[in-house]
């Protein structure tokens, strides 16, 4: 069972007059099999939340536990290893290496980690995301939405326990974004992943198991589909 727990997490940027509280006293829990949506206006702290969850930033105070291990206590190398093996990140931009073809984006992962998706599984994944014909293309030959879907495939390729996605559907049309959400939901439910999707796209809300809202750094549960 995978689970991610935030207890009383605060994140403060700067100090003195430039002091800014980006996250206020956040308690949060996500478990295997859940697709969680985190919504909120721009600048409310969504990316900050997601990067703390993935160990890219440390909270100013409070505790973050991943599989019952406090990730804030890990050193840089251990954090990198954790992200490589357990977390699939889809970030807001720069997800793809510009000089690698779509196919090679996955080869790169094989260079640093074993036991990734097989060639067939990868083809299936690309098929599901409707990008199988783009394998030989380079990022600058792809549309924004195509890039985003490659980035999603890239995050899923390592079969991570956690998938943390920041605005993964921002560049997708309604049809494509519900397609992506359907895929993520299936992964959460059938493969028991923890999936956290940060977005301000309210079209996605029907697919989520839980929806949290962040406003001015404060997080609250606003809906739960049981």
């Amino acid at each position, binding site marked *: 069972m995978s689970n991610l727990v935030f207890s009383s997490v605060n994140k403060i940027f700067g100090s003195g007059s430039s002091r800014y509280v980006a996250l206020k006293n956040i308690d949060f829990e996500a478990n295997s099999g859940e697709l969680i949506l985190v919504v909120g206006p721009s600048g409310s702290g969504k990316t900050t939340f997601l990067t703390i969850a993935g160990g890219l930033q440390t909270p100013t105070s409070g505790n973050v536990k991943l599989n019952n291990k406090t990730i804030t206590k890990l050193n840089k190398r251990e954090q*990198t290893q954790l*992200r*490589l093996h357990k977390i699939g990140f889809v970030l807001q931009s*720069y997800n793809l290496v510009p*000089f690698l073809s779509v196919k090679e984006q996955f*080869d790169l992962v094989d*260079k640093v980690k074993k036991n990734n998706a097989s060639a067939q599984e990868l083809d299936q994944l690309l098929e599901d995301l409707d990008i199988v014909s783009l394998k030989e293309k380079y990022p600058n030959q792809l549309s924004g939405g195509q890039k985003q879907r490659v980035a999603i495939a890239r995050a899923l390729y390592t079969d991570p326990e956690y998938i943390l996605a920041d605005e993964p559907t921002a560049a997708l049309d309604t049809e494509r974004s519900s397609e992506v959400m359907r895929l993520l939901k299936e992964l959460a439910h059938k493969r028991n992943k923890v999936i956290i999707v940060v977005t301000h796209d309210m079209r996605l809300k029907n697919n989520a198991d839980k929806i949290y809202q962040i406003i001015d750094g404060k997080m609250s549960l606003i809906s739960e589909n049981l």
Partner: protein
Amino acid sequence: MFLAIKEIWYEKLRYSLVMALIFLVSYLLIILTGLSSGLANLNKSAVNEWGAKTIVLDKDSEGRLAQSFLSNQTIKSTNGTALSQYSSIVKSKKGLKENSTIIAVPKNSFVYNNLIVLNGKNFTSNGTALVSDIFKKNGFKIGDTLYLNNSTVKLRIVGFTPHATLSATPVVYTSFTTIRPLNRGTINAILTVKSKIRQPKNAMVLSVEQFINKLPGYSAQKTTFNFMIGFLYIIIFIVISIFLYILTIQKLPNYGVLKAQGIPTKFLTLNTVSQSLIISIIGVLAAILLGFATTILIPSEVPIVINAFNIVSTSIGVILMSLFGSIIPIYQIAKVDPYKVIGG
């Protein structure tokens, strides 16, 4: 290596331009290093052939063979091989001319025995000479008579010897008696095979290295070349640094995301190191090939020496500089905070 090669392939133009630059600078390095050794050899090669360790000269000679006139007292009190020198233009009947240094040493001395004979034989009777193979290249033959300017002294070539140049002139080896009419029996130096000897009165004792460094113009030439060569290495360092620095800056957000995805920093920095190695190795290899081609194509008067030592030292130098050049980019990659670059 994977990323390095893919990126070079993807950015062919950029990378070919830097490789071309490194190639050109390395070529210049090889030519300059080759010229430096070649000219140094022209100045000193005869001295190395003698096989001496120390040289005794007149104390007021400033280390110059031509300015050194040893007293009888010094000659008597020093164990070693006496040596006389006389500079003159020598001519053949056919009108061939050569500005040369005539050296006299005793027969069967260690210096005499160290001289390599390529063709013919060493000088024996008075009036015979073993001469530098440069004479041969320039058309002189065994049996030719050499006439000296403003003198009745004649020499007959009996053999050719390699590596026989001193202060950029070919050497003519002969007996003391032969040149007595020219220098009235002056002894300019005494050579010994001991690395340390007692200093005779009114004399200076130099090691062979010190003697070579005091050859006219030798040190100045070496310093000039070393300065230019050093500068070229610095240029290589700066070129590689700037190039990789700019490329790295452009890719920093991607490196940040790759780190966020758990790609180890070491994997990313190795990419940069491999690139700098690939660039410098290709550049230097091409330069070595062109360097060899150059020595084959240019006239033999240009004294460029491309030997294993020059090739190895230049290659190591260029590769080291390029490795130093990747230090700043490596530092950039290592310190990039994934969170900072992904933003949003």
